[in-house]
């Protein structure tokens, strides 16, 4: 059996609201392996985004641990984990609007310490994801939602991390581009040995995944 790249153990997350305590995730256990693509599905409010936040090191669990290659990411340092090992494509894209598409990608590569010709790599990725050359040098605010989505995915891919998280990555894309992106994710998992975890409502994405995790009321079912 392959060693899991990412291991969730008893992962619990509660939020305090006044005197009320709401538990969104309830003791989730799962191991994710390198070279596989996972889809997390579930109805709204089931805790998918919270699970993604905890697994990607954006947030800390109330209880339980997230281990990356056997090391608790809290001990590794969440910032360091995000910087070196995990990248996220957000539902709300989260691009830096004062930068061009290429600058968003090269900037992320610099921050995450990716070596080599960054600009060339950024252009390659944008070409791969179907962003026109003239759009690659426009500020992201001037791009359409679909183009922005592609730039956000290209940025995550450019960071050369071990685990790629994506929150509804194909939500704003047409069917053809969405299929292309699903293929990119699959290749990333199967050819490059990355662990790809996608939170999705899309049946296509779920079908293309190696494993589908169903989340319901904070528990994996």
């Amino acid at each position, binding site marked *: 059996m392959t060693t899991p790249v990412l291991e969730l153990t008893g992962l619990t997350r509660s939020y305090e609201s006044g005197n009320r305590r709401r538990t969104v995730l309830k003791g989730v256990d799962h191991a994710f392996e390198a070279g596989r693509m996972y889809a997390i599905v579930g109805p709204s409010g089931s805790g998918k985004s919270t699970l993604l936040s905890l697994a990607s090191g954006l*947030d800390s669990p109330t209880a339980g641990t997230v281990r990356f290659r056997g090391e608790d990411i809290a001990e590794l340092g969440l*910032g360091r984990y*995000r*910087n070196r090992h995990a990248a996220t494509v*957000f539902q*709300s894209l*989260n691009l*830096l609007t004062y*930068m061009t598409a290429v600058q968003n990608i090269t900037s992320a590569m610099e921050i*995450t310490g990716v070596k080599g010709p960054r600009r060339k790599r950024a252009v390659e990725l944008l070409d791969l994801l179907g962003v026109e050359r003239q759009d690659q040098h426009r500020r992201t605010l001037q791009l359409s939602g679909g183009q922005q989505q592609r730039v956000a995915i290209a940025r995550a891919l450019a960071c050369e991390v071990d685990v790629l998280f994506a929150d509804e990555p194909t939500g704003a894309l047409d069917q053809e581009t969405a299929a292309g992106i699903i293929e990119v994710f699959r290749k990333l998992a199967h050819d490059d040995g990355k662990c790809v975890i996608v939170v999705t409502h899309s049946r296509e994405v779920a079908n293309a995944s190696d494993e589908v995790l169903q989340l319901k009321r904070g528990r994996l079912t």
Partner: protein
Amino acid sequence: MNLFKRAWWRLWAHPGKTALLTGLFTVICTLVLSGFLIQSAAARAAESAKRSVGVVATMQLDLNALIASGGGSENDGAQPGVIGPGGDLRRSLVDKICASSAVARCNYTAESVGRPGDDRKLYQPVPPPAGQDAEGTDFLKADGVRELSEVSAFRNGDAKLTAGSGITKDSKADEVVIEERLAEANKLKVGDTFTMKEGNFPPPGEKRDDTDIPYKVIGIYKSGTADSGSYVPAMMDPANQIYLTTDGVSRLDGRKVAKDGGVVKQATFTLNDPEQLGQLKKDAKAAGADPEIFPLSVNDKQYKTLVGPIDKTAGFATVTVWLVAVAGTVILALIIASALRERRKELGILLSLGERKPRLLGQHLVEVVACAVIAVGLAAACSQFVSQAVGDRLLAGEVSSAKQDAADDGPRQDLSNPMGAGAPPEQTPEVEPIDSMDIRTGPADLAKVGATGLGIAALATLVPGARILRLNPRDILTKGD
């Protein structure tokens, strides 16, 4: 460094905000630099005033202190009412004090009177009215000095040498400088001999010495006080004022010149800096002067008159610098705090990429400093004009106020006395306050405003930026469930 690139892209992408920040910084830096320039100009003016007028400290006998100390009774026991040697201000002592590092120039005087020799006469254009006895006033007023050029009338230009040279510390005891009207009346020129007799009245029972004492005329000067056209007692006529060395005065008085140079009436020390009075007192004490009996009093009226208004202007400039710096820091901090709120998402994105929080703070600092650097450049270009205009206006107000205050204090005493050029050296001529500023932008001023600008930028960024350190990317970027 990615943070520099990000800062540049951000500034370039938001020209309006960049211009606003730069504009605000330019105003702050211009006002701060103008304050510094006014301060520098005031400091230069004060320095120049010190050099031109100096501050004069006078040393002379305090008779009450001498009597209180018991020294007044040491009068050889011969002459009641005559001050004994304890009250003598020795020239050797004054020479030692003159060597003090605090002293820029010094002088001392000894006063006496003389009568013209047998073949000489006083200058008296108008004879005494019939029946008026000139006895007791028909003298030449003879002042012994160390340096003629240090006598106030010569320093302030009321009297000028027209021929020959003046009395200096190297002059001999038989040398004299006379006024040109007296020279003309006696048909004297430089190099001729001028004879005098002892002028002081002898002690009771003794006979006055009538021997002619020869002096060589080494210089002729012109007094600024013209003839009045009416009778003036000879001793009060400026034309009858002559200058000798202090040894020359001793000769005239029929006293032997002591090895230590004898006694002087008073000594004046022009200080390099008013602050150095303490040093002068210390040096005077070290030289052997009793500070109770020969106290040093300072006349810094001229200096204060000159630099008073400009000092007040500089004081106002200092307050302005502080106010602008503090207010500017607060305003900028508020603007940056507001910008940070606007840029929460950007910060969250960068944090999600694993960017370190200090670097996020660094990016903001670089953006603000970049604006500050441009602002310092702009301020350097326009502060010269702003500070000149503001400084001149403020100074004009202060000068006017100072003049009004002086007028309110009542009419000024007329310092020109009947002695004209013979006015005692410690008296100071009236001066007008400095009423213009020499504003110059130098590297030191630019360095100061640069440091201030950077300090303001750092404070205004780091204080509100501290909240970056508490940011959590999850809160910013994800919606939660």
